């Protein structure tokens, strides 16, 4: 749409864009233009409210409300359109104000047909890309793509590390004595372990994502699951000299899928041990709070800063610090926990103090 009080500009633009089309290698078809005309800002807004348009060529100096006011209305009413200001005298002040309000481009007046076409071409491509991105976002493809790229980074890093160490051994970098390579072998094993954990987490993750995992909802005794989990992590807790205490004051069964609950409990308990201090403790409480079953896991570990808590449940987020750099983790565990809890409309609340410890409390809705 051309918004200009000068009839010459309106007819000029119509003529210039009449037989003009924009093509782009990625686009399936060429873009052609239908031109709408408006003499005043008021008229332009009327048209915009009635039907969606793609591009507005907006003169600033208009008989009624000014171009910049039209821009303001477009913003306030959230009209999805790209605005190009046409100005006869380029004023810096106007340019700054208009750009701040979201004008995409400026075309100086008078303009040549070539200038106008060039500007329209850029905008069309930009618009196409923007809509494409929105479409991808809606389909979740963007998210998945990013997820995959981070995943491949996470999988490649340990492979690179182990490969590098093996090459050092092959070249006998540190001499012939096998003992010189102890640390390198330890680090390689550590990275392989990390990769294994990541793959296991990935499997949980994709099952939840695809929704294909067969679920069996049955009454479960969480206490039993937690106890079993504590037992299975005993080698780790002994190694870190962490005491794990369980207090089960709630015996009501919870209707849930056993495997899913095991994943949730395993993640929280293993984190509480992993991120603990040598000689620390973990307190697990299962109780009823206001009629809701609540499971809390408290540790005396390294804790986190407040800004870290907010990121904790995102995919592949690991809190990186001096304290965590020797702890292997996929960055997926808590993201998996969160997704699973969403299936139950359960909430998870985190409290933490750096250097003191963290507590994770899950509250299940009353589903009995």
């Amino acid at each position, binding site marked *: 749409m051309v918004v200009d009080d000068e009839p010459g500009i309106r007819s000029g633009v119509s003529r210039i864009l009449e037989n003009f089309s924009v093509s782009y290698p990625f686009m399936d078809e060429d873009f052609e233009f239908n031109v709408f005309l408006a003499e005043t800002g008021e008229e332009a807004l009327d048209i915009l409210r009635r039907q969606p348009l793609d591009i507005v060529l907006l003169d600033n100096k208009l008989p009624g409300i000014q171009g910049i006011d039209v821009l303001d209305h477009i913003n306030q009413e959230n009209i999805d359109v790209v605005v190009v200001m046409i100005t006869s005298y380029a004023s810096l002040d106007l340019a700054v104000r208009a750009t701040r309000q979201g004008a995409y481009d400026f075309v100086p007046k008078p303009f040549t047909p070539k200038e106008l076409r060039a500007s329209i071409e850029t905008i069309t491509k930009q618009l196409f890309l923007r809509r494409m991105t929105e479409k991808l976002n809606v389909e979740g493809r963007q998210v998945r793509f990013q997820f995959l*790229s981070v995943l*491949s980074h996470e999988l490649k890093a340990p492979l*690179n*590390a182990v490969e590098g*160490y093996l090459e*050092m051994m092959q070249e006998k970098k540190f001499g012939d004595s096998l003992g010189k390579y102890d640390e390198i072998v330890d680090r390689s094993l550590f990275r392989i372990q990390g990769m294994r954990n990541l793959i296991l987490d990935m499997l949980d993750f994709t099952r939840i994502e695809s929704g294909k995992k067969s679920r069996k909802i049955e009454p479960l005794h969480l206490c039993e699951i937690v106890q079993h989990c504590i037992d299975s992590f005993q080698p780790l807790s002994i190694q870190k000299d962490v005491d794990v205490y369980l207090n089960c004051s709630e015996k009501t069964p919870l209707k849930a899928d056993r495997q899913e609950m095991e994943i949730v409990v395993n993640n929280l308990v293993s984190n509480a041990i992993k991120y603990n201090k040598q000689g620390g403790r973990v307190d697990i409480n299962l109780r009823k709070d206001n009629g809701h079953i609540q499971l809390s896991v408290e540790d005396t570990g390294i804790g986190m800063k407040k800004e870290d808590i907010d990121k904790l449940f995102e995919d592949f987020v690991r809190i990186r610090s001096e304290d965590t750099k020797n702890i292997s983790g996929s960055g997926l565990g808590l993201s998996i926990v969160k997704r699973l809890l969403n299936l139950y409309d359960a909430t998870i609340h985190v409290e933490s103090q750096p250097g003191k410890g963290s507590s994770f409390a899950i509250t299940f809705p009353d589903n009995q």
Partner: protein
Amino acid sequence: MLKNTKKTILIVDDDMDYLFQMKTGVQDMGFDVITADTQREAESIIERTKPDLAILDLMMENQDTGFILCHKIKRKYPDVPIIIASAVTSETGMLFDVTTQEEQEWIKADLFLDKGIRMDQLQREIKKLLKI
């Protein structure tokens, strides 16, 4: 007599194994190596020291840590060549492209390398950038 001072190379990467391997490899090429495994550590190093070249990992604490560091080093020492090493380039060309096409001008890294690069290739690139 020809003055033959050892060149110093700063390597920044949060993967301690990769950092160790790079350090060993680059030292073997005959350079002095300083390492940092966080953005903060790298920043405090460049406050005190001017390296002859820097090799930065792209994705560290944040997805753009490498870029930010690059920007800061170039602002302080415009003449220090910078290599950005990334494990992301090869398998996700697209993601990398989107962020770099416009950013590459802004960033002014001298070279983008894939992390899988062989040491002899790396040595050649370093020598080219140091003009030795």
